[in-house]
């Protein structure tokens, strides 16, 4: 185990994968530049050469298709977008090629590839640099969709994704890149399709991913101090969804709060509420609740984003309302600016 950041864990996973298998490739805009995708691709070109690690033109559609073709040719490409939003130009290749190839050609040609997409937030990222479209990908049969929430998972899930014989969309929240955690050394794997119960509890099940898992843990600690016991489930993958684990938890608690880093309509949080209701209706003691972004595009001004993103405070309030309890949230309120992930961030990107 080593203490490292989420970003370093991604970098570590890339090094481990590329060293283990010469078929693993890495490419993306800026992958070999001095900033190395927030450090996550640092050293790869030096270690594995410019044939396997390469920068590209602003041609994300063709290069996504190139990943599909390279996968057909036996390689395991890992493409990266500095913002998920840039992948919108490549939906044809993601949905019509990558997701369907194995199925539509009769189950003979696996497409082993990963597309890393970084989700932006704050510091004026604004409407087109902060979208989290995992709901779109979760809607598409054939894709696997991963959203790690800790450095350990970041490494373990990325390694598993790279060696999974299917196309995996891997969403990294920018605000997680600098979070710290213990990370196992070497070829550490975390299986896809398995959720993690990151806090056990009896009263309410909180189901989230990515940054919302951190918020849920914080909320869970505050609520515990006030006698409300939360079970926090980190989905890890939103396609496929680990229903068994969620069901078992809701069967126990009878209460659900679904958390999401995206807008609510037809979201993964909607899927969680719908799926739980269908499966556990008779066990539910209260109406399930979603906590998502407001159903609006994300504005730029810090004045407009200050209250835009849901946080532990909102979770505490929702759970308290559900339990008909009063729980103060003062200890959660800090006066740091709400549009940066931490003091280390000084802009501009």
């Amino acid at each position: 185990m080593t203490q490292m950041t989420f970003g370093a864990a991604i970098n570590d996973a890339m090094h481990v994968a590329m060293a283990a298998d010469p078929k693993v490739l890495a490419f993306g805009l800026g992958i070999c530049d001095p900033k190395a995708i927030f450090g996550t691709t640092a050293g790869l070109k030096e270690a594995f050469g410019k044939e396997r690690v390469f920068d590209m033109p602003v041609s994300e559609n063709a290069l996504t298709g190139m990943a599909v073709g390279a996968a057909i040719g036996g390689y395991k490409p890992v493409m990266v977008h500095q913002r998920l939003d840039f992948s919108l130009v490549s939906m044809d290749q993601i949905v019509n090629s990558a997701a369907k190839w194995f199925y539509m050609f009769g189950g003979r040609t696996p497409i082993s590839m990963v597309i890393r997409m970084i989700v932006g937030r704050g510091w004026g990222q604004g409407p087109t640099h902060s979208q989290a479209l995992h709901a779109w990908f979760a809607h598409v049969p054939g894709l696997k969709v991963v959203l790690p929430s800790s450095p350990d998972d970041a490494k373990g899930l990325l390694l598993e994704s790279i060696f999974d014989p299917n196309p995996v969309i891997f969403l990294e929240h920018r605000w997680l890149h600098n979070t710290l955690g213990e990370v196992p050394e070497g070829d550490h794997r975390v299986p896809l399709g398995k959720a993690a119960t990151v806090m056990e509890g009896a009263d309410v099940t909180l189901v989230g991913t990515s940054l919302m898992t951190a918020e849920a843990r914080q909320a869970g600690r505050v609520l515990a101090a006030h006698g409300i016991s939360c079970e926090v489930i980190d989905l890890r993958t939103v396609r496929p969804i680990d229903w068994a684990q969620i069901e078992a938890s809701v069967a126990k608690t009878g209460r659900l709060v679904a958390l999401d880093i995206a807008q609510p309509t037809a979201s993964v949080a909607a899927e969680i509420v719908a799926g739980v209701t269908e499966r556990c209706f008779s066990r539910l003691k209260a109406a399930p609740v979603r906590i998502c972004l407001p159903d609006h595009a994300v504005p730029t001004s810090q004045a407009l984003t200050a209250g835009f993103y849901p946080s532990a405070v909102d979770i505490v309030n929702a759970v308290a309302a559900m339990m008909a309890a009063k729980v103060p949230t003062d200890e959660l309120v800090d006066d740091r600016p709400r549009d940066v992930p931490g003091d280390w961030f000084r802009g501009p990107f």
Partner: protein
Amino acid sequence: MIYIRAVEEAIAERYAEQEMRCPMHLSIGQEAPAAAAGLCLRDTDYAVSTHRGHAHYLARGGDLKAMIAELYGKVTGCARGRGGSMHLVDSSVGFMGTTAIVGNSIPVGLGLAKAIQLDGSDAVACVFVGDAAVETGSFYETANFAATARLPLLFVCENNLYSVYTPMAPRQPAGRSIHEMAAAIGLRTWHGDGNDAEECMDVIGEAVSSIRSGGGPCLVELTTYRWREHCGPNYDNDLGYRTVQEFESWRDRDPIAVLERRLGDDTMTRTQLAAYRAWVAERVAEAFAAAKDAPFPPPGEAYTDEYADHLGQTR
């Protein structure tokens, strides 16, 4: 060409039986580029194609029975019935797939070229495209990157003058040729008469050798003409989007007839051709019979294979 023509005419004849239940884009009349490319490429090369892919699949040696079965939606189809006419694949001869979205398979070809470059072999990745596919951003981005990275990518562009029922005018600037533009993007280019199989062989052959010897990506534009409707088995000159004269002038230059005339009509050639035709007819009959006989996939196959498993597929 004789082979491809025979297969597609057999399809056209039987389509009205309503047993091949999928959209069908025939290459009848425009077989020469496919046939030539088929001969210039090896099984160790890769190829991908489009909605109009029968000819390319067959020319590259794709399994006939598996193709016909696919059209009939049978489990013996090359995609086990999941794909239909627009999704042909036979990886045993390097034919890696045809797809149904215009421009979609182009970047896949780019990836195959990248794989070849990484493998370090002298293989070629061939992408068949129509004149309209060239209008997609996907074509341009692919050509640009292939030229930049000097990948072993070959475009065979069958310019049949139409995109569905739309002629060139609303789609591409007047007087601009595809191969000249492609050259300016960074491809080495050739062009030729797409109804002259020998000329097709010459230009594709040159392009392929250029790529094998490290010359970087190429495009060969071959002008030709589709005889039947865009999608379906019938003639459609009654629709009025093209003139009967235009159609007839191209039909008079039937690529098979052009080549046969050149072969001469001495007895030996005639006998050999007749024998070949007979052999083809038999293969075609066999393939249709086998397809009709073959079982449909069990309904449950609709719900398998969302994902490949770790063990690798061994079908």
